[in-house]
């Protein structure tokens, strides 16, 4: 029967060659990386494997019969026999000294960290204990290294967090200072403008006596430029409010065509001075729920740009369309137009018209950027189509059904 199975034949031959079952079992123990010791009731080592010799630094001969306490650090030896006695009381396989940092002692007296598992081995009614001892020096080193790294990392993280918090405080403070500065700058600039604009206006009214033609014109220049200066100040304040997210809309329901008429009234003089035809082709006669002053600002910015960039005798007109969801308002002109390459840049902060339009170059370069922000704050959008030399069309779309701002 055995002859029929070549595998069994090979195994049987190997067994014969390598020795008895006991010998094979011994090899199995010898191959274990952990030290395995058997200790008799007197505490003497009665059996051991090769790893035990290696780990503790004794020869087999030295270990056999040696009291196991010799493998325990001197400081712990006192309690060891007691521990062994208590193990005898409820002997079963279990790790030794759970939760404790156990150490072994080599022949040369050096100590090393160990993990020990104990098993009872009853021989003719007396308790022998089998101890499996693992040298965990390497693992401890790795664990220590990990702990050090983790501590380092945590410390670095804490330091970074503290830095960030400090930085946040600085930014907050800088922001507060900036806002205070803007508020006070606004106040300080407006105070003299108040009297410059007021007195020039008073003079142009000629209530205090007639001005000759030149005087009237000169005072008109002062008034116009002072108002321009005021616009620039307002733009700088606006952009800083927009950037710090402090610009809030005050929505109300108002008649759009009235609002547009007011804006056109303010722009007519500029158009007339260049003999530009200003036409209102608006057809939207409904109400809009928006920030009325900001809508006026949006329309004024677009119309005043159209007049600024349209040569004498040109046309500027405003038209509208609504699809029930959005009101599209277009400001169109027969002006110098915007080269295609520049069209995506004109809404950027501080962008100024290129060389071709240098003649008309004045202002902060914030107007269109502010306009875009204001339109977007309303939930709308702005777009431009233009052909260089043929004019531009700026379209703003305001949502007609206002959903409450989510902030």
């Amino acid at each position, binding site marked *: 029967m055995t002859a029929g199975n070549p595998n069994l034949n090979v195994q049987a031959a190997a067994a014969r060659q390598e020795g008895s079952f006991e010998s094979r079992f011994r090899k199995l123990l010898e191959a274990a990386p952990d030290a395995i010791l058997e200790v008799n009731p007197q505490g003497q080592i009665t059996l051991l494997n090769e790893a035990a010799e290696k780990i503790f630094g004794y020869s087999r001969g030295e270990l056999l019969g040696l009291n196991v306490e010799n493998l325990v650090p001197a400081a712990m030896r006192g309690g060891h026999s007691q521990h062994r006695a208590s193990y005898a009381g409820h002997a079963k396989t279990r790790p030794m000294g759970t939760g404790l940092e156990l150490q072994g002692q080599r022949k040369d007296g050096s100590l090393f960290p160990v993990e020990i598992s104990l098993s009872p081995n009853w021989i003719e009614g007396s308790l022998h204990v089998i101890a499996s001892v693992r040298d965990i020096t390497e693992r401890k080193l790795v664990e220590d290294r990990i702990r050090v790294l983790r501590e380092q990392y945590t410390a670095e993280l804490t330091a970074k967090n503290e830095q960030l918090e400090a930085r946040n405080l600085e930014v907050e403070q800088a922001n507060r200072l900036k806002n205070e500065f*803007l*508020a006070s700058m*606004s*106040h*300080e600039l*407006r*105070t003299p*403008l*108040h*009297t*410059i*604009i*007021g*007195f020039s*206006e*008073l003079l142009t*009214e000629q*209530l*205090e006596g007639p001005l000759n033609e030149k005087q009237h014109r000169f005072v008109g220049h002062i008034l116009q430029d*002072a108002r321009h200066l*005021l616009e620039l100040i307002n733009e700088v*304040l606006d952009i800083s*409010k927009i950037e710090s997210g*402090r*610009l*809030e809309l005050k929505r109300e329901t108002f008649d759009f065509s009235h609002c547009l008429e*007011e*804006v056109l*009234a*303010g722009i007519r003089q500029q158009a007339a001075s260049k003999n530009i035809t200003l036409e209102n082709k608006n057809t939207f006669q409904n109400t809009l729920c928006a920030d009325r002053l900001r809508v*006026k600002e949006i329309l*004024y910015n677009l119309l005043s740009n159209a007049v600024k960039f349209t040569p004498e005798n040109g046309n500027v007109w405003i038209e509208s369309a609504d699809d029930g969801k959005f009101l599209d308002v277009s400001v169109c002109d027969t002006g110098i137009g915007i080269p295609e390459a520049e069209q995506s840049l004109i809404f950027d902060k501080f962008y100024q018209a290129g060389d071709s339009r240098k003649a008309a170059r004045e202002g902060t370069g914030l107007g269109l950027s502010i306009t875009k922000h204001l339109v977007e704050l309303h939930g709308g959008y702005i777009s431009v189509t233009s052909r260089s030399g043929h004019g531009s069309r700026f379209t703003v779309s305001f949502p007609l059904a206002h959903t409450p701002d989510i902030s």
Partner: protein
Amino acid sequence: MKRILIVDDKATSRELLHAVLAKQGYAISEAANGQEALEKVRAEGPDLVLLDLQMPIRNGYEVLGELRKDAAYAMLPVIALTASAMQGDREKALAAGFTGYLAKPVALSHLREEIQRLLDPGNAVKAGGTF
């Protein structure tokens, strides 16, 4: 003749407002700070006060607070006039009890209109074409 008290620490601003409003036929007096303003209101009993907000000694809010505590001036028209035109300033002023609010620089037509509205509501001027 209706009497207006102009309160502003800047002399040039007082002169401007004085010139504009005197031409409208109002009797004008001036005060250069909050303390003086309170004294003049009590001594002269003006029909309207044009009150600058930022002033030394006592600012516009303090003056208004003092006036509104006194039953005799609880209904006195007081217009806040300020160069601090930050967002929320108008709401803050009206909430504090000012009757009106004007931001510097103020368009003259707007100034005249606002004062006429408060002093002579039956005969208010039409709004000027100011933007």
